């Protein structure tokens, strides 16, 4: 059974000018322990997909969600808001773009960590939480956990905060980790280090990952399988190697050509819209 199975997911927002559909039938699945990337440009619908999986958009008035999202065989849309909330931070967790602004600026790391741990162990004692957090921070190669726990996020470097975020995300041993452009706000070497670390840890714990990115280089390193999303549709999917070596869809090829290359060649011009971009290679069910 797959950890996450999305079938024919649609999302539209009700605006005063009428409904606007932003996801037109997304289907994807992630097996246990699998790392899957969702690749596309800004505004293609990557992040909203992750937020639907987390159950954050379901309660928003004005958002209409169609299709099915199954987490470990349970249909998310059939759950109550309370049941969806219960999954968050325990069975599903998330890592964000900018670790420093994702941590609350006026609380110490230790307190925020305790709150995360309390999701799985309600009423966890301060000493217990601190001991657990110390162990988890050591796992992400933080050598002075005590100092970090007593610090405010602004006192730590971006890379350090990202390690903290990774430790928090995996603290309750979730079965699914959503990584929304993790560390994009960090500089490239730090991003690479922290991604390496994340990869090792999810391997160790057998965590499934939905990795959202526009950075193909990172995706190639990280993911087992790739879904390419364009304007709210999945246009191509396949094992990472296959997609990178033989991109079938014109948009995938354009996206790859857009990767800056050390050996020069400059950036190609990608048209904002191209009719061929909208012709999918992947056909799901009776939609599209």
């Amino acid at each position, binding site marked *: 059974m797959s950890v996450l199975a999305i079938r024919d997911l649609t999302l539209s927002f009700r605006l005063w000018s009428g409904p606007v559909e932003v996801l037109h039938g997304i289907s994807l699945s992630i097996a246990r322990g699998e790392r899957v990337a969702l690749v596309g440009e800004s505004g293609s619908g990557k992040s909203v997909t992750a937020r639907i999986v*987390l159950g*954050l958009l379901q309660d928003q008035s004005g958002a209409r969600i169609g299709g099915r999202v199954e987490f470990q065989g349970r249909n998310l849309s059939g759950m109550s808001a309370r049941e969806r*909330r*219960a*999954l*968050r*931070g*325990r069975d599903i*967790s*998330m890592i*964000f*773009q*900018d670790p420093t*602004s*994702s*941590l*609350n*600026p*006026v*609380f*110490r790391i230790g307190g925020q960590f305790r*709150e*995360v741990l309390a*999701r799985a162990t309600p009423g966890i004692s301060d000493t217990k939480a601190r001991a657990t957090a110390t162990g988890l921070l050591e796992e992400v190669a933080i050598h002075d956990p005590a100092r970090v726990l007593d610090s*405010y996020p*602004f*006192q730590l470097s971006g890379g350090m905060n990202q390690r903290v975020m990774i430790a*928090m995300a995996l603290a309750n041993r979730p079965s699914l980790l959503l990584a929304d452009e993790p560390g994009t706000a960090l500089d490239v070497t730090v991003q690479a280090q922290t991604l390496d670390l994340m990869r090792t840890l999810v391997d160790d714990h057998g965590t499934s990952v939905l990795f959202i990115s526009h950075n193909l280089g990172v995706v190639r390193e990280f993911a087992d399988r790739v879904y390419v999303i364009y304007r709210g549709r999945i246009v191509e999917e396949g094992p990472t190697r296959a997609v990178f070596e033989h991109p079938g869809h014109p948009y995938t090829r354009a996206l790859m050509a857009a990767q800056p290359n050390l050996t020069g060649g400059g950036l190609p011009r990608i048209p904002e819209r191209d009719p061929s971009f909208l012709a999918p290679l992947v056909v799901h069910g009776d939609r599209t």
Partner: protein
Amino acid sequence: MRNVLSQTLRRTGTSLLVLVGVSILIFAIARVIPGDPARVALGPNATAEQVASLREELRLDEPIVVQYLAYMRDLLRGDLGVSLYTNRPVAVDVAEFLPATLELILVAGVMMVGLGLPLGILAARHRGRWPDHLVRVVSLLGVSAPGFVWAVVLMLAFSYYLGWFPVAGRIDEQYDDLRHITGFLTADTAFQGNWAAFGSAWHHLVLPAFALALSGIGQAARLTRANMIETYERPYIEMAEAYGFPAGRIARRYAFKPSLIPSLTIIGLDFAAMLGNAFLVEAVFGWPGLSRYGVQVILRKDLNAIVGTVLIIAALFILVNIVVDLLTTLLNPRISHAPGGRA
């Protein structure tokens, strides 16, 4: 912590300068206002000699600089001069009337924070739904009508028609001979274990304090709501949501604390402003406080009392500001834990 301490010391130093400035200003203004204080004090039937002798006693014929220096010399010894209105040392008047005003303002301040902030949190958490609309209407009402209007309205409704609260005064007459220790009747009655009088003091206090607090409650609620709505857009709140922190806990803790820091300065100013606003509420409820005293002495051009009252109120205002700055610093780790000395 060193930051906090040095900041407080610095602020206290500049505050003393401000107080000296205020004293010069109010001293000059009180004397520039037309009218002869000696004539006002003695009444229309006094002879010219009587007026002249009082003027001499008050040093009114000397240059203003000499008058000021003499006043400051007395002030440093704790002598605020004698009031022409009550014929008592101003210090004695202040000691009698100040606790009443402070008691009123403190309770109003507690109401402002204790009701305004939770209402703001409630509105922000349920933004766009009925609790939000209700809070916005109520806070707009509070902000848009001045305290004395509320004083009259509340008095009419709850004292006159419903009869739930007394109309005026600080305590029932039967407790008038109660021993005063601090001048705070709620505290004095409690110290003496006189619970009936304690109840009576609170009974008299609630309505005027609420009237005085209403605009502050509205302001605090609106400010908290606005700042919280801004905070709710921050990534760290999305993170808290993504990790399933309980919604109430996010509102009361993770969204509230960052939002409180910018609100605090204004809430502090509002609180300090109650010192002045208290006058009309004190007048409506017959509350024997310092603000009411201040206005009466101004009308009688009672120089010593005017300067004394204004200085006390200015000192309190500055004190409140220092406390608020201190709180802001303590709440904001980016200041209290800043590397290096200066905050």
